[in-house]
């Protein structure tokens, strides 16, 4: 599964993109964020307040309770600020 990080989520994790094998027991976006948080100081910082981190599954906005089954690309980012 491909993971992407943008803006300050990217800066805090220190990673723009990576491919991972999803550990067993991770079914939702929220589960994935909880697991990512355990991957070191940068990830812990990026996902410290999961309520302000937004996610997209295969380029579509997804809620934290959205299922990951079948997803190929998951992105994490702050609330958008374009326009």
């Amino acid at each position, binding site marked *: 599964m491909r993971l992407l990080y*943008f*803006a300050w989520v990217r800066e805090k994790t220190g990673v723009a993109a990576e491919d991972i094998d999803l550990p067993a027991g991770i079914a939702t976006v929220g589960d994935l964020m909880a697991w990512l948080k355990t991957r070191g100081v940068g990830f812990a910082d990026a996902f410290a307040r999961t309520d302000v981190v937004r996610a997209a599954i295969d*380029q579509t906005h997804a809620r934290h309770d959205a299922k990951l089954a079948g997803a190929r690309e998951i992105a994490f980012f702050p609330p*958008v600020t374009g*326009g």
Partner: protein
Amino acid sequence: MIRVQEADFDLGAEVAKLKAGRSDIGAIVVFLGTVRDCAGRVKEMTLEHYPAMTEAELARIETEANARWPLQASLIVHRTGRLLPGDNIVLVATASEHRDAAFAAAEFLMDYLKTSAPFWKRESGPEGSHWVSADARDASARARWKAAKDAAE
């Protein structure tokens, strides 16, 4: 029509293209968003985005606007990369027979773009640089369209 680009755009040329050869359009509304220097606190702005998702999201928003109002043409152009105070950021244009649809659709496009399109602004100035926080007013601005749609249903 959707475009995401680093290059600047020419507002006059974009509107001219929109109405070229047409005499059925009565009203065109254009929104132009530009970089504010915020009284000298902003010297530079960098716009990051999620390319694969940006175009999909903008296209989805444009489709939604066309489903809600009788538009004859619509255009969204958004820049990315490094911008300076005064620079153009975003152009939205809508064309319709009457002004009510053109105005409403342009506002709708901006409200949805501001809250859905995956762009992130980083501002730099004499006090350092930081990621711009989302403005709660944008969420409220978007919410009114949801209410309007529910009321109409």
